[in-house]
């Protein structure tokens, strides 16, 4: 009996990740209880508000997973948002080619409004959906090649591809927003299955698949090793280049999926949608979720997203009609991040004091 207790205690002591999950869950519960009380009359836990939260958090959540896998292997991917945007811009460009607008001087003249026929061929719609995913794969190959094979530091390589992708998308659209995507596409962001919004289901599915990859495949194992010590993994016969390449491809494809959801929600594609905030936000979420090089649990990304979304919606409801209330969201996120840092620091310090450092 004592042995079992020891094993249990040891496993708790030594799984940093699970501690982080516990901390995040506690914070999530506190946040939910707080806003439920403050916003009772406004219906914080009403079906409508929960649904709207579920849609909003999905796209950033998926981008955060795209960021997370690269940070796990000791890299970073600044080009996720640019990849997402380029994917849907090219998709729009393709629809434009298929159904050129009437009475204008060709594609180059205007490129803002897609005129869809009443009954578009279904293969066109399918190809338009696949194009962003292909862009995601190409983005991943490019990043993976630069980082893994050439040896460019990840932050520089992906900053380069960020500029490259944004530049291509801006050139194609002349800086304008493409609108008029086929109505069928709206179903992705607005549809639901068993009353759960599809974007949320996609986020959940991606979280589960990523969890399986990271924790139950040899690729996930190798990713952790590469993230922990890239030299030792090379000397252990792990093919670092392939691991890095695969990771950036996963990241690119996930970014594209987020791009499709954004396109479906806004029914438009812009070369710089979310450019200034999304990437930093995903880094914040990754840090919040306790992801480090070689260590981390994708479930924590999921819980972190729930917290951030609850904070954002909660404050919005609470301060409805107050001027400048939207800034309070950023403020609360900042506070949360600092609180978690401090808690983690205190926990670590207590631990190292207890064991000594000889």
């Amino acid at each position, binding site marked *: 009996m004592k042995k079992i207790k020891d094993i249990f205690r*040891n496993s708790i002591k030594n799984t940093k990740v699970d501690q982080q999950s516990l901390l995040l869950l506690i914070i999530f519960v506190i946040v939910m209880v707080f806003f439920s009380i403050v916003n009772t009359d406004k219906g914080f836990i009403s079906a409508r508000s929960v649904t709207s939260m579920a849609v909003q958090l999905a796209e950033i959540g998926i981008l955060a997973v795209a960021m997370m896998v690269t940070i796990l292997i000791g890299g970073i991917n600044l080009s996720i948002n640019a990849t997402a945007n380029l994917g849907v811009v090219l998709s729009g460009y393709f629809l434009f080619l298929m159904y050129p607008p009437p009475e204008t001087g060709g594609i180059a003249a205007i490129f803002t409004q897609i005129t869809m026929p009443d009954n578009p061929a279904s293969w066109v719609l399918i190809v338009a959906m696949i194009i962003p995913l292909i862009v995601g794969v190409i983005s991943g190959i490019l990043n993976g090649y630069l980082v893994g094979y050439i040896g460019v530091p990840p932050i520089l390589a992906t900053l380069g591809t960020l500029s490259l992708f944004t530049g291509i998308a801006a050139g194609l659209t002349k800086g304008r927003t493409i609108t008029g995507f086929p109505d069928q596409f709206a179903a992705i962001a607005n549809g639901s299955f068993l009353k759960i919004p599809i974007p949320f289901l996609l986020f959940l599915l991606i979280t589960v698949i990523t969890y399986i990859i990271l924790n*139950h495949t*040899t690729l996930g194992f190798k990713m952790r090793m590469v993230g922990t010590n890239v030299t030792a993994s090379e*000397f252990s016969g792990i093919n670092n280049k392939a691991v890095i390449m695969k990771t950036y491809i996963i990241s690119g494809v996930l970014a594209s999926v987020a791009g499709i959801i954004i396109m479906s929600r806004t029914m438009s594609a812009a070369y710089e949608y979310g450019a200034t905030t999304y990437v930093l936000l995903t880094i914040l979420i990754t840090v919040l979720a306790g992801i480090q090089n070689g260590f981390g649990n994708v479930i924590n990304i999921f819980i972190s997203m729930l917290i951030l979304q609850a904070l954002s919606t909660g404050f919005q409801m609470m301060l409805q009609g107050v001027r400048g209330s939207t800034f309070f969201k950023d403020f609360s996120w900042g506070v949360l991040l600092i609180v978690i840092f401090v808690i983690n620091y205190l926990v670590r310090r207590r631990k190292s004091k207890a064991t*000594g450092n000889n």
Partner: protein
Amino acid sequence: MEEELLRVEGITKRFGGVTALDDVSFSINKGESLTLVGQNGSGKSTMIKIISGVYTPDEGDIYIDGKHYGKMSPLQSIQAGIQVIYQDFSLFPNLTVAENIALNDLIISGAKTVNWNEVKDFAREGLRKINVDIPLAALVQDLSTADRQLIAISKAILADAKLIIMDEPTTALTQNEVKALFKVIHDLNQQGIATIFVSHKLTEVREIGERTIILRNGQKILDQDATELDIKTIEYQMTGRHIDRSSIQYSEPKEDEVIFEVKDFNLSHGFFDVSFKLYKNEVLGITGLLGSGRTELALSLFGQKPADSGTIILEGKEIKINSIFDATSNGIGFVPEDRLKEGLFLPQTINNNIAAKIIDSLKNKLGFLDQKKKMDLAGEWIERLDVKTPHGELPASSLSGGNQQRLVLAKWLAFNPKVLILNGPTVGVDVGSKAAIHDLIRNLAKEGMGIILMSDDIPELMHTCNRILLMHRGRIVEEFDRESTNEDDLNTKLIADDRDENQKRQVE
């Protein structure tokens, strides 16, 4: 000179339930040279940290120059003239030699502007005090480990050190550099500065120290004149058991069966015309000083730095090694020199470290990673190599140096290579683990694994190898048979070559 400088009395220090030091007392006189010896975990590092004020002892007293310190802070320790030189030297690699030496003084003086001439004069003075000559304008990152160490020492002297503690200072030095360091230490002692020298290498203990203190499991086991000690006694007192060398069973190589052969192997700026054969059941040693091409040869055989030309024949078939993948898929394993950087995933679990090489073979039928298989495999190797740990889910960083090295070995042995290349497999490993690793190496050879052991630790080579090749300036210059040579002979040859080289350098 018999004036007492430092005395500690009844020092006890506990971490949680572990007693790191148990009622230890000793003293050191001015200008005395003391060596502190003990296996990993014997309490050496804890003792140093107590003397330097990093840790506060649970019980016991510290007296420096007759003054009693109950609780001593690091600052008080420095003010009392105690300087510790840790293995990383605490230098700024991107600054010049002069800047590094003068930095402390600059900060203390509180001047807002820097007088560069003063800085240089100050640094020159520091180097003169230990009679060495290092260009003041050189960047520390471009210097050898030995030079960095000398800079750290001159820094300590300029801080008015009365006692300089050096934590395993010779780990990364060549034999000649060790000699030079010893001379500096002797000079310091002449000037009345006491030194405490912490080491694993037993031959050094006899050379440098006037007096030796041995710690074992946190207790002082021995404190006596170094001249009265022989290596066998030190070994016995450190480990608590006799390591019997006379009974070593060397396996007889089968000279008609060549496992591995290298012909006309070349790498520009690395090694030239290297050819050798490895027979079955044989441990082949390759030695040479830093820069002899030994490490480059190891890296080329493992595909990390592919050779420019040459032939490799494994079990009668010619193979090409242009990448680590080529090497491992042909069954060549490699235990690298730098355990921490190249061998281990320190924060990862012990289990993960052992499984890292053969992870692809630990899948279940569905292609997913089989966690249970991984645990079982790791558990088996923890037992077979006697890794001392409560369980395999602890991080590798929780282990001592010797046990960490066993992890690196386990990772490769789980892969069951045909040829295993080991580069400096016992650097920074305590005597007990060292003997165990040597036993293991000999047994592996006996079981038929081809072993190439690269090392500059002469006793290690003599205790494990059947033949020893000496490399110098990228070439194999001599071959020794264990039975027809001895340690002193090999040592002289190794250093003679180095001296040669230094003379040539001066001529050039």
